[in-house]
């Protein structure tokens, strides 16, 4: 459905700009949404998708730019205001009230009432009618929490649309749904589309983009990369828009190293967890670097968390040295001499208030048990050894780690695990947010570690980088390990075409 040219667009954003200290989150971004259109909003981490949505719905104030809704310039003061303007948002984490009944969630604040008393029967009847329009036949008197996330999401959509939404924003609505639930949701979206509602759909799943979207807009590093009708857009082009990389004419040269042979150190067979990652097989030999590549949300971090026991697998078996092992908690993993530096360094990695020394000895101390305190002299020795070894730039080991730069924090985190003399290290985005110099050092460090006989599993969004040090690369898509590249296949180009293929 293409509106005629004289008619104003449903939603028009021009030159939207928003900066945070040190980051330009949005830089003159344009965005146009037609009525009766499902518009995919895509981009990797930090691209500016959530900032765009927040600026649109009044959660954040924009620095500059114009937002027009049906030709009228609007500025939402908050989400409630946005909703009254006709912009409804449904988040991945459903923002409804789990303890209230489904009917109350749909009608709170506007319950039908008589003489000050809520007409519960009437409210439930209307709620059932409303949800029947979405093909949902449930007991609306039950609390919302008694239903699955998928149903809660449909209730949230029904509520937003019923509050006269013209624009419906869905922020990663499918992230915790299974395939059949996604189908149901898409059916509903298509129904809303035919009613002339404009839908902004944020997702990481390419298959879903192609299944349901009419147009896509890609953001990268706060800038608009482009806005295109999906029908004319080959997958490979979409992926290169997202990753910001053209297909290179020739494969990049990488250090050819002899293929690693021998018995696997760690192996996983049919290892997986429902709704997180489909079962996969993976084996690493000592001295081998295996890269995990894929778009955001493809299951890279989920794989790492499963392997380190942060999440518990519900299928398959893990082996170390050929022996079956139990990997239910990170403690189990640490006991098996695994190490893990998480993606989100600030919240999952460092303890910002503690000193560098304390951060470095943390894992080692935990491994020994808290009753066997590492003598202070030994602690100092370990800390200074790693500060020197990894070239952590700091005046002394007693400085709080929060005051270091990102690269040095990352090195200290590596030191934390190296101090435990691990046999297998998992590095999730070890080079994110690190300046160029430190970046190269971390990569050199990775290469040195595997020469020392460690098995390394590295996750990175930087395709060149991952291709340069990995012996093998596992490519993930839509929470599945789709292909394992080895030997000459390991190149940024093959990785990209594999991500885009289907």
């Amino acid at each position, binding site marked *: 459905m293409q509106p005629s040219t004289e008619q104003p667009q449903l939603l028009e954003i021009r030159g939207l700009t928003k900066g945070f200290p040190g980051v330009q989150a949005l830089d003159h971004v344009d965005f146009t949404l037609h009525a009766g259109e499902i518009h995919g909003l895509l981009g990797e981490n930090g691209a500016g998708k959530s900032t765009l949505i927040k600026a649109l719905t009044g959660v954040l104030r924009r620095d500059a730019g114009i937002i027009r809704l049906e030709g009228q310039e609007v500025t939402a003061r908050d989400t409630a205001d946005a909703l009254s303007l006709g912009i409804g948002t449904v988040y991945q984490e459903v*923002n409804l009230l789990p*303890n209230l009944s489904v009917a109350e969630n749909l009608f*709170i604040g506007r319950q039908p009432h008589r003489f000050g008393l809520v007409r519960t029967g009437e409210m439930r009847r209307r709620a059932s009618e409303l949800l029947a329009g979405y093909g949902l036949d449930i007991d609306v*008197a039950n609390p919302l*929490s*008694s239903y*699955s996330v998928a149903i809660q999401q449909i209730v949230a959509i029904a509520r937003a649309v019923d509050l006269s939404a013209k624009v419906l924003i869905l922020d990663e609505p499918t992230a915790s749904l299974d395939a059949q639930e996604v189908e149901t949701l898409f059916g509903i979206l298509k129904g809303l589309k035919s009613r002339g509602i404009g839908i902004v759909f944020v997702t990481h799943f390419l298959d879903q983009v192609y299944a349901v979207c009419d147009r896509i807009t890609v953001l990268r590093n706060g800038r608009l990369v482009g806005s295109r009708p999906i029908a004319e857009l080959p997958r490979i082009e979409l992926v290169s828009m997202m990753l910001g990389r053209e297909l290179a004419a020739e494969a990049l040269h990488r250090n050819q190293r002899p293929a690693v042979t021998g018995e696997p150190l760690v192996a996983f067979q049919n290892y997986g967890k429902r709704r997180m990652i489909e079962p996969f097989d993976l084996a690493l030999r000592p001295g081998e670097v295996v890269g995990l590549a894929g778009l955001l949300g493809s299951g890279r971090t989920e794989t790492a968390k499963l392997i380190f026991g942060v999440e518990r697998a519900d299928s398959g078996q893990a082996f170390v040295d050929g022996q079956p092992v139990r990997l239910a908690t990170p403690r189990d993993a640490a006991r098996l001499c695994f190490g893990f530096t998480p993606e989100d360094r600030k919240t999952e990695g460092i303890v910002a208030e503690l000193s560098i020394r304390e951060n470095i000895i943390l894992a080692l101390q935990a491994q020994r048990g808290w009753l066997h305190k590492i003598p202070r002299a030994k602690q100092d020795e370990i800390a200074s050894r790693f500060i020197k070894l990894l070239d952590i730039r700091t005046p002394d080991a007693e400085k709080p780690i929060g005051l270091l730069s990102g690269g040095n924090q990352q090195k200290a985190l590596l030191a934390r695990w190296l101090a435990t003399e691990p046999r297998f290290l998992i590095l999730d985005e070890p080079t994110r947010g690190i300046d160029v110099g430190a970046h190269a050092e971390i990569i050199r460090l990775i290469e040195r570690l595997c020469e020392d006989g460690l098995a390394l599993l590295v996750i990175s969004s930087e395709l060149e980088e991952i291709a340069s040090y990995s012996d093998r690369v596992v490519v993930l898509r839509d929470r599945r390990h789709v292909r394992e590249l080895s030997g000459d296949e390991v190149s940024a180009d093959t990785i990209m075409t594999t991500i885009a293929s289907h």
Partner: protein
Amino acid sequence: MIRRHIPVLITLAVFIVGYLICLAQFPSFASTRVIGNLLTDNAFLGIVAVGMTFVILSGGIDLSVGSVIAFTGVFLAVTIERYGVNPYLAFVLILGLAALFGAGMGFLIHAFQIPAFIVTLAGMFLARGLCFVLTTDSIPINAPAYGQITDIAFALPGGGRLTFIAIVMLVTFAAGIVLAHFTRFGANVYALGGNRTSAELMGVPVGKTTVRIYMLSSLLAALAGIVFSFYTSAGYSLAATGVELDTIAAVVIGGTLLTGGYGTIIGTFVGVLIQGLIQTYITFEGTLSSWWTKIAIGALLFAFIVLQRGLSAASVRSRSA
């Protein structure tokens, strides 16, 4: 449908089992006299527990209610006995004062985002302190109106009496049930306890609701204070110490989740009756120290909190399965 009524049903089962045990040992528990006294003796606790249920449902707490009860008693005794104020006028005055006091606490909690625990703790000391400013003595209230009111009672078959203050409690509970379950205000209270941020995003008037919740709680505490002054015919600064904790215990035993969002007014009613039952049993028994009431309530409270954890964990499991 049934699952969300489980906590109340368990509370009810505990009451029935407890009652049967009492009955087996002391057949006179079946008499309307004992039942009438059970209602009369716990009238003030029941009234203040209705307000507390709203507070806890919204995810808050009100520690000031015991002090408000004491202040009400002292205020009534001083104004009626020393200054000769008409008792009915004194009732209106204290109810108005208490409503203002509660609204003030609610305002502080909302406007400055101070935890309810802190604000109502301050309110507790403030109200108790004001009692001592008025008087440090126990002042008996001899106004004729008091005699007339306490004489009002319906004779129950079998010699028991349904007293005026018991009726006030029953009416308060009935009004509380309507307010909680059949008004927009009630839905907003549950919404606040479910998730404050979501409630705000969904357009629930969070500030207005918070102020009204604490206003209601203090108002009902003052009403409980009036009832308490009928019951004791005196005002005393040290009266009703620790009643806030008995009240919270009654609410939790009644199946209301201490973290807010889940619970019923009728459950609180049964919770109050269970406390009263234990107290009555110990009086009948005669050899036990009255402190055993506290021990029994403590054990019961503990059991109920563990049970609630178990139930909510079970419901999460059944949903993800």
